[in-house]
């Protein structure tokens, strides 16, 4: 005996499917966001810590000669990536070996840096702060400068009810700010929520994307955070072995962390050493530029079978990952007012 509820559901479901088929609209199953990965002892999120983290992020005081801040390579105008430079540079115009990755959705990221050297967001800042080609400083010197600044003493007091500035407080404040950089409001996200529709071209691109790219650039974060060799010829000058530098395992040779494709329109140049300036160059690499080797990802055993039209469609889809609300969010930009004033309830 079929009960009324089952009958009702069956009829409604059929009507929806028939209507959809009539409109030739594909019903996509969108992946929900996984739970965040970031956790930390003694970390209570609040606006005073976020403010403090933002000040630190934008302050070149953290670098040896006070010329380079985090924002120097993680530009707020470019999804916190480093554009216009294939390799990021630091103090005294020193040039590094890699292109600074974009910063977004960090709470969902289990591992950091192109080679996965860092495994907790709190500790990430230590790497650029102390690298001689980046900020060239020491944590001890940073603490010394901050503790000597009445400006920072006031902001730390506001956030921690104590004007003693410790490593833990500096690093956690930076994390608090970085965790606010969430991008989840692109056209793709709106389509996934059912409040927008892909154009015909974007739709084609999405289907191709799911077929050829999503095994590593997995939705909805557009990365599965794994390390892969995607067939890039090793630069003989940079000699960057990627993940193997950290694990010492030859199976990890030439593997780099899969980056997110969100806001990819704004985060050129592409790959760990910024060797590709355009998305077309990237796709051309996947169709005709793959360099084989023992650690090459299985997905590239044959070049991707994409026609020129296919590539255009995929790029059209990738542009739907651009999130204006993230890119132009005033809460993320240079805190001019904060730098000009002491906090409201400053203890004199």
């Amino acid at each position, binding site marked *: 005996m079929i009960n009324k509820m089952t009958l009702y559901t069956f009829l409604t479901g059929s009507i929806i499917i028939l209507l959809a088929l009539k409109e030739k609209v594909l019903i996509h199953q969108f992946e929900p966001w996984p739970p965040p990965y970031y*956790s*930390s*002892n003694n*970390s209570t999120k609040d606006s005073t810590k976020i403010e403090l983290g933002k000040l630190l992020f934008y302050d070149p005081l953290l670098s040896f000669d006070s010329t380079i801040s985090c924002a120097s390579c993680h530009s707020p105008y470019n999804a916190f990536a480093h554009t216009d430079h294939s390799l990021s540079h630091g103090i005294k115009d020193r040039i590094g070996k890699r292109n600074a990755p974009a910063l977004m959705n960090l709470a969902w990221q289990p591992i950091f840096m192109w080679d996965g*050297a*860092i*495994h*907790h*967001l*709190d*500790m990430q800042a*230590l*790497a650029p*702060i*102390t*690298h001689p080609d980046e900020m060239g400083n020491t*944590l*001890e010197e940073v*603490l010394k400068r901050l503790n000597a600044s009445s400006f920072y003493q006031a902001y730390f007091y506001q956030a921690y009810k104590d004007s003693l500035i*410790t*490593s*833990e407080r500096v*690093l*956690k404040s930076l*994390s608090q700010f970085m965790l606010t950089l969430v991008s989840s409001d692109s056209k793709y996200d709106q389509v996934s929520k059912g409040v927008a529709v892909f154009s015909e071209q974007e739709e084609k691109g999405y289907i191709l994307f799911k077929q050829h790219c999503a095994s590593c650039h997995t939705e909805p974060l557009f990365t599965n955070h794994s390390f892969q060799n995607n067939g890039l010829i090793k630069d003989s000058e940079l000699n960057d072995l990627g993940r193997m530098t*950290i694990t*010492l395992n030859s199976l990890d040779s030439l593997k780099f962390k899969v980056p997110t494709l969100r806001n990819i329109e704004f985060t050129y140049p592409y790959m760990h050493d910024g060797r590709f300036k355009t998305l077309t160059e990237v796709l051309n690499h996947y169709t005709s530029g793959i360099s084989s080797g023992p650690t090459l990802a299985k997905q590239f055993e044959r070049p991707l079978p994409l026609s020129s039209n296919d590539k255009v469609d995929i790029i059209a889809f990738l542009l739907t990952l651009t999130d204006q609300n993230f890119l132009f969010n005033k809460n993320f930009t240079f805190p001019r007012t904060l730098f000009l004033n002491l906090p409201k309830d400053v203890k004199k």
Partner: protein
Amino acid sequence: MIRALVIIATFSSLTIPAFTQDSISKRITFSALKELNYVIKNDSSIVQITALKFYISNICFKHKDSSIYKVPNSFYLIDGLKLTDIELKIPFHYKESIVEFCIGIDSATNYEGALSGALDPSLGMYWTWQSGYINIKIEGVCSSCETRNNEFTFHLGGFQHPYNSLQKKEFKYRKNKNTLVLTFDINQWINQSDSFDDCTIMSPSSKAQNYAFLFSTFLKANND
């Protein structure tokens, strides 16, 4: 009658121990290195120690009835060139027990993000370019090292498979004693046949593991 009671009361107060019946104080003392200069016997190389630092963590006391008391938040950074006294209050039940601890910082703690106190990353025992604590740091000069200024630098860390260099040690307190005095027998360590095969170890690796293990075997209890 009253006099008897007074005598008994006085006598009892003299024999009742200074601690309550609930807890007991146990001490672990790390002696300062008495000597900084050593000679490797088989090739007459001269070794001078200029820095020795290591972490002690996860201290626990094991009773012969198999119960274990874990000392909460037991993380200590020991400077081997100085005397360090660790005093712990533990439940009385563990008066006669074996103490066990790790040399280094365990994996779970390494995953916890920015920490403070002995675990503050600004103490020179945390790698900035690759996450992780330096479990044992030994620096100095060895005349047979072909490095700049004959320096040797052992920063022994690593908390992830397959290069976890954490070491475990256990010691028995002598009967009725609540103090344990430990020393690193540097002389024996440097006289191991391959103690200076490498003069620089600054990242997780099987070498770092071997050195950490070897070094831990020379942490000994004083017999006094």
